């Protein structure tokens, strides 16, 4: 396990090494992660797909941690899931076509996007603590 890997690096490596993903999908996902890491808002559909994909992967990791009775990892995963919940909520808000506040005020929306990207960057560049092992 390389404890120096960030969440972003771990996720990217995981996507890159996943042989089950079709090449085109894999590239889309990697581009999406890279864009997020660079503070850019990716394509909406791709972002949703990546989010759902990572959610599924998190399920697997959580399952493995529960089976291994790894208290520390379970606790860490709970933290990651909390962060992810926050991000997901923010993403929904930004992409919501019926969100009048954002639709009527591009400045507010821009600010929300910047906050979101900042949060993502913060999570993505945090260290995952043993998650890599499970991945």
């Amino acid at each position, binding site marked *: 396990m390389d404890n120096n890997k960030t969440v972003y690096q771990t996720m990217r490596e995981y996507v890159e090494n996943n042989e089950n993903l079709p090449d085109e999908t894999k590239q889309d996902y990697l581009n999406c992660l890279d864009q997020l890491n660079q503070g850019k808002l990716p394509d*909406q*559909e791709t972002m*949703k*797909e990546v*989010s*759902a994909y990572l959610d599924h992967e998190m*399920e697997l990791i*959580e*399952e493995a941690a*529960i*089976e291994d*009775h790894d*208290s*520390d990892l*379970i*606790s860490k*995963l*709970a*933290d990651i*899931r*909390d962060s*992810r*919940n926050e991000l*997901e*909520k923010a993403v*929904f*808000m930004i*992409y*919501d076509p*019926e*969100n009048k506040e954002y639709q009527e005020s591009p400045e507010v929306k821009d600010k929300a996007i910047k906050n979101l990207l900042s949060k993502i960057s913060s999570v993505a560049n945090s260290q995952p603590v043993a998650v890599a092992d499970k991945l």
Partner: protein
Amino acid sequence: MQELYTGAEISPGDEQVLGQAIHSAADRVRKLIEQPGFGKKTLDNSLLTTQALNEARESREIIDPLRRVVYEHLSGKQRSVEDVLGCKINVVPDEKGRLIEISLPEQQGEGGDLPIPPDDIPDDQLLEWGKKNIRSKETNQSQPVESKLFTRLVQIEHAEDGLSKKLAEADPGDLIAVRTLSEALKSIGKERASLLKLANARINGVTTADGVRSGALKTKLGDTAVKTGEAAGAAGIAAAVTYFGTPRTLFHLVDIPHIAGISGHIENARNIVTAANISMAPIKEALSSATNQIGALKELIANGPAQLQTLFEGLKGISIDSINSALETSKNAPDVLNKLGPLLDKLNSMQSLTSQINSAPGQISGLQQTSAESIGQIAKISGDALRSTSGEQVAATRDLVIGAVATTLSAASFSDVVRNIASAPGRAIKKLFNG
């Protein structure tokens, strides 16, 4: 009592409740997928169709495995750790002293992979095959995260029971045993805390999905999240009857952070009431004293004139002639004073009483003012306490609601089961048993 495949004893009443919960959950999921645009949506390569759901609902042989999934959570009702969970607790000596070895079912090497039904078994015999071959190994089957999480929590509770019992029975002089058992309890407690933390994070995810739904998002991911949330709510009914439904487990609800908040809020409210009572005690005492004084003064005002009248009537009994006679005949001052004494006493009493009656209204007014202030202080203290306790009550209610959402954690279990059934009706049992 009916013996089910899990070995759990379910009363007819429980069975009815569970049956209703499952049907209700199935109805809600069916309703959900009948929504426009959702019925044909693919999810993990499985096609959810209303027809498949209806088939699932109408077929008792498919519903029964659904029940089994629910009943698995009922391990809390079962009798012993060893019999039910196969959780062995051994004290195994090692180099440093003693090491507690807790062998949970999946560690005992009983199962490994669950047996796969042979392909030549007809569909209508799959259930019987499952009952016969999977009964002893069902805890090893592939389960969604929530099921594993709760199953593990139940296992931990039982293991804790066993460890606590051993600790209670341990020779206090055997420090190694006591320390080892304590450490084992601590370790398992840590695992439980982590599991509960993860459970809460997952609850928050469900709550997010609900929030998204209320925002009327119609995106693909939004729909998925909504489905999760809805299915969570539906399956929560069943889960409530299972993990949270057992009296023994209810005791442990305080260990769940949100639920623990409830007991914390109750404790806070108690403290607020106690503090308020302490603050109010001297004020109440003063108020009580003032009230008594006011009562006495009012009585004086009411009865004073009558007392004056009585005193005045008493004056009639004093003979002025005898006083005059005493003044004329006696040169002895004390004798005169003796004769005058009763008169003077009554006059003094009348003067005093009159004075008291006259000053009573003023005193009453003063005491009433003091009482009003005391009442105001009491009202403020009790009002503050009431507001604070109401805050605690609201917070406790909120936590209770959030805690109730915890019951929705078997969302994935239900939706996955439904998905499995829907993806291959007729072969669903194989899917259910093998994940």
